[in-house]
């Protein structure tokens, strides 16, 4: 290059015409020039200012002989040589300590960051001084050159000449540093910015708290928002000012570093470094704000934080660099950021294009980060639904921004497969999660496209379970709490809830007449199909919404008829076990079912309920007239029991599900009463007559012991068994079976109820096939009164006394006690539903947690009574 340059500028022919004197002048000038240059480069500039005029004369004499380019080349090469040999190695030596820190070591990170800051600032300061020094003499050369008359080769304005030299020099600096760049330097920069940003974030957080204190504690979000906008307005206020100063100082320091880095040619590397630091910090902030709390929205706080920290930082940085950048760094090196010199008054200017681009980038990143975080936890979020509605709303907004719905579908389906659709999960839990999924995802995905994809694996799985229909019906119709204490009750059935949602939606309307409402609903039902793929969306949200959830539930089974049948069986069971005629709940449920499934489908159930209403009336009628008769009639028969104890449910058996007939000999006096009752009925209702189903119904018993009386509610069979022991305290199973009129094995199954209650004891008789049953005697059989739970469970409908159900529950729940205690140890205190949800989440197998909230509450109240737990303000604590 040197040769080329020489030949292009110099005419070699000129050399021949040079005189001896000229040659010696050239040589002398050249030698002197080289000596001074060497001294300058070496930094030995003592007394150089005096020789400035000499330097200038050497330069001009060399120029005179057309050696200007040689002068320029030599000077620049000398500078470059110095940079390569001394300045750059010295600069890089500072970072030797970090040569093998490619992975961050977590333990002493903080310490290292402080070190990095000092080191980087010092190193940059040093090298910048070196650079300034060289620039000073570069300027001297430029000035000398400009003084030469012979400046024809460099045409143009003097300032252009200067620019040319400085950009050339800048290029030399950058390329020297770039070619010697150690591998770890970008990492060092990254750490530096990360540390500074964290510091800034802390200062800002201080501002938050401060600000909240000022605003009082009301409307925290508003406070933050206000603050974020107020930030640039230089509010005059003591502590606020203090922080502003702190912040300004920090930004100025960072600005200095960035400035120095840029002037060394590290513009894009610097930008990469603080960008990655900003994103890292933002990610940490999102994680921190979002956490595992799904009950509040965090999106706004994240956006406010973006405004308050990274954007403030960038804004301040750009403002700081703004005025100096424009001439110091060549335009070719300008980053998009540098395009905003704008004004130097922070906050006064409109946000620059660069800032807006940054904001979009940061927000997109935040949305995506939050979205990924929420998607990963979607299963838990849905378990927690509707309490987790804020998290769902956040996720919805994120997805609208990023459009990555398919991510949600894939991730959630695999979570379902792994967490829910396993043998350990109860059908009830799966169904509840399914319904929660529908409700939650409906917000995100009103069209139901993704819901369809997510729901299908659940439906598919549920179809393989035997108890699915039963569980669906229970969920739809049974409030499990069983009480209707007004709206918003968690004990509501799903149907009730769907209905209420709908009523709330059209609350704005007039005072709805229930009849017209039902009528409209009924009309809708006529059009109802289990699987409305694309039913016309113009039909109004009211119709669409209702179909959505229920339709997707019915979709599991495929037909509503199966559901209705199952409901009929369950309703029959419930009605036949009633001790009174109170069917208000069932009537309400039937009304709701009629709305959703159509009146025709529910016809038989309606007749069943009607039977109960009729029975009540007929029962009163029969008993009233029969008592009159007995008063007037013969007193000869000594009545042990009166008609007062008899109530009867009279069913239209054609409309009921098939009823199991079992022969049983009920106690003679009762039997007598029943036949009198039937006779009276026939008299009143001729030509209708009664056929008794003696094994069905319920009996309330009182058993008298020496010092107490116990009450039981049992089946007629159980009552008949125990009544046999009134006259005879010990029976062989064969004789007892004959007396009751049932097969021996059935008797053995049924009598286990009384054995489990410790009232009857069993022993093997003389014949090994024959068991001996005895009333428990205090002296002899006290030890044999243990509860035999297995047999009780095996006897499917024998445990209808209150005692047995609760005892059983307490036994079953004991395995969860250690979980509950462990949880409370960890969390300090928990509300009922949180304990419930956590158990549901963690006890998916061995043992599976399948208890209702009420059952849990009952169990916990037992633990409180045992003084193991405390209950304060609806929160459970460990008793200390």
């Amino acid at each position, binding site marked *: 290059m040197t040769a080329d340059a020489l030949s292009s500028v110099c005419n070699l022919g000129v050399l021949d015409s040079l005189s001896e004197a000229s040659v010696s002048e050239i040589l002398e000038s050249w030698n002197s020039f080289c000596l001074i240059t060497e001294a300058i480069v070496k930094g030995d500039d003592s007394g150089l200012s005096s020789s400035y005029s000499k330097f200038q004369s050497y330069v001009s004499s060399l120029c005179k002989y057309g050696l200007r380019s040689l002068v320029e080349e030599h000077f620049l090469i000398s500078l470059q040589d110095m940079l390569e040999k001394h300045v750059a190695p010295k600069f890089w030596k500072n970072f030797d300590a970090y040569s093998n820190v490619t992975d961050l070591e977590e333990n002493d990170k903080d310490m290292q960051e402080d070190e990095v800051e000092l080191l980087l600032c010092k190193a940059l300061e040093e090298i910048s001084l070196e650079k300034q020094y060289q620039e000073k003499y570069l300027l001297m050369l430029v000035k000398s050159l400009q003084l030469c008359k012979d400046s024809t080769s460099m045409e143009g304005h003097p300032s252009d000449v200067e620019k040319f030299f400085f950009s050339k020099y800048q290029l030399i600096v950058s390329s020297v540093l770039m070619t010697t760049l150690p591998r770890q330097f970008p990492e060092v920069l990254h750490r530096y910015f990360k540390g500074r940003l964290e510091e800034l974030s802390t200062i800002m957080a201080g501002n938050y708290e401060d600000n909240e204190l000022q605003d009082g504690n009301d409307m925290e979000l508003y406070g933050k928002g206000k603050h974020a906008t107020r930030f640039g307005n230089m509010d005059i206020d003591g502590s606020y000012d203090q922080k502003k100063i702190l912040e300004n100082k920090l930004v100025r320091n960072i600005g200095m570093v960035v400035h120095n880095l840029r002037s060394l040619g590290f513009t894009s590397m610097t930008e990469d470094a603080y960008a990655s630091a900003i994103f890292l910090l933002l990610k940490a902030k999102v994680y921190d704000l979002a956490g595992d709390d799904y009950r509040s929205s965090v999106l706004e706080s994240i956006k406010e934080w973006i405004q308050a920290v990274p954007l403030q930082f960038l804004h301040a940085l750009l403002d700081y660099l703004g005025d100096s950048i424009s001439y110091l760094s060549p335009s070719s090196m300008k980053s998009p950021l540098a395009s905003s010199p704008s004004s130097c008054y922070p906050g006064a200017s409109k946000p620059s294009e660069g800032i807006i681009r940054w904001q979009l980038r940061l927000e997109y990143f935040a949305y995506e980060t939050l979205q990924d975080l929420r998607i990963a936890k979607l299963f838990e979020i849905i378990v927690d639904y509707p309490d987790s509605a804020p998290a769902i709303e956040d996720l919805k907004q994120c997805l609208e921004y990023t459009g990555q719905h398919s991510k949600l579908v894939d991730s959630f389906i695999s979570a379902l497969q792994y967490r829910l659709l396993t043998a350990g999960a109860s059908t009830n839990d799966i169904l509840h999660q399914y319904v929660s999924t529908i409700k939650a995802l409906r917000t995100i995905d009103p069209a139901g496209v993704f819901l369809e994809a997510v729901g299908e694996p659940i439906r598919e799985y549920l179809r393989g379970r035997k108890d699915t229909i039963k569980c669906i019906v229970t969920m739809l119709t049974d409030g499990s709490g069983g009480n209707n204490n007004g709206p918003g009750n968690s004990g509501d059935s799903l149907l009730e809830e769907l209905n209420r949602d709908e009523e709330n939606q059209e609350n704005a309307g007039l005072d709805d007449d229930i009849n017209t409402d039902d009528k409209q609903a009924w009309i809708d039902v006529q059009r109802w199909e289990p699987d409305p793929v694309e039913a016309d969306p113009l039909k109004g949200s009211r119709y669409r919404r209702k179909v959505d959830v229920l339709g997707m539930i019915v979709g599991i089974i495929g037909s509503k008829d199966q559901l209705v049948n199952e409901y009929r069986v369950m309703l029959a069971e419930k009605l036949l076990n009633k001790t009174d005629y109170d069917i208000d709940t069932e009537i309400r449920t039937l009304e709701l079912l009629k709305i959703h499934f159509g009146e025709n489908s529910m016809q038989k159930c309606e007749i069943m309920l009607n039977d109960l209403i009729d029975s009540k009336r007929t029962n009163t009628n029969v008993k009233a007239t029969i008592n009159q008769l007995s008063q007037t009639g013969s007193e000869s028969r000594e009545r042990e029991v009166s008609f007062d104890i008899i109530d009867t*449910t009279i*069913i239209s058996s*054609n409309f009921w599900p098939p009823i199991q007939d079992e022969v049983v000999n009920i106690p003679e006096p009762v039997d007598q009463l029943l036949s009198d009752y039937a006779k009276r009925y026939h008299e009143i209702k001729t030509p*209708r007559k009664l056929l008794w189903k003696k094994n069905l*119904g319920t009996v309330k018993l009182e058993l*008298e012991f020496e010092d107490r009386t116990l*009450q039981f509610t049992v089946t007629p069979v159980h009552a008949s068994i125990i009544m046999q022991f009134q006259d005879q305290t010990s029976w062989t199973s064969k004789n007892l079976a004959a007396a009751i009129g049932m097969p021996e094995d059935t008797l053995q199954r049924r009598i286990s109820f009384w054995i489990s209650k*410790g009232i009857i004891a069993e022993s093997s008789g003389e014949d090994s096939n024959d068991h001996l049953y005895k*009333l428990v005697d*205090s002296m002899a059989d006290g030890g044999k009164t243990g509860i035999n739970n297995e047999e009780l469970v095996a006897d499917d409908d024998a445990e209808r006394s209150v005692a047995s159900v609760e005892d059983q529950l307490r036994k079953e729940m004991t395995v969860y006690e250690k979980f509950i205690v462990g949880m409370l140890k960890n969390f300090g205190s928990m509300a009922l539903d949180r304990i419930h949800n956590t158990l549901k989440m963690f006890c998916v197998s061995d043992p599976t947690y399948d208890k209702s909230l009420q059952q849990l509450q009952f169990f916990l109240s037992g633990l409180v009574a045992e003084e193991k737990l405390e209950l304060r303000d609806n929160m459970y604590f460990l008793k200390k």
Partner: protein
Amino acid sequence: MERVEFQKLEFISEVFTSGFICLWHAVASWTWDAHDETCGICRMAFDGCCPDCKLPGDDCPLIWGACNHAFHLHCILKWVNSQTPQAHCPMCRREWQFKE
């Protein structure tokens, strides 16, 4: 209160002296005291109801003719009204007369 008592049941060691029935809620089905099971006109069960009715029993009673054949009241009325001037029993073709 009840619960406390029941929990103590496990430890009962007294002999119970006597039992009382406080309530016997029995279950029965009703049926028409007819010889046939189904109505000869509508072919529906007597214990059900005629095609025009929704509720069985009192709302859709049976009626006997002098010939001792029974029908849903609503069914035979429709039949009688359609057979003018004189209706016959759909089963035995005898002149239809309501049983006294």
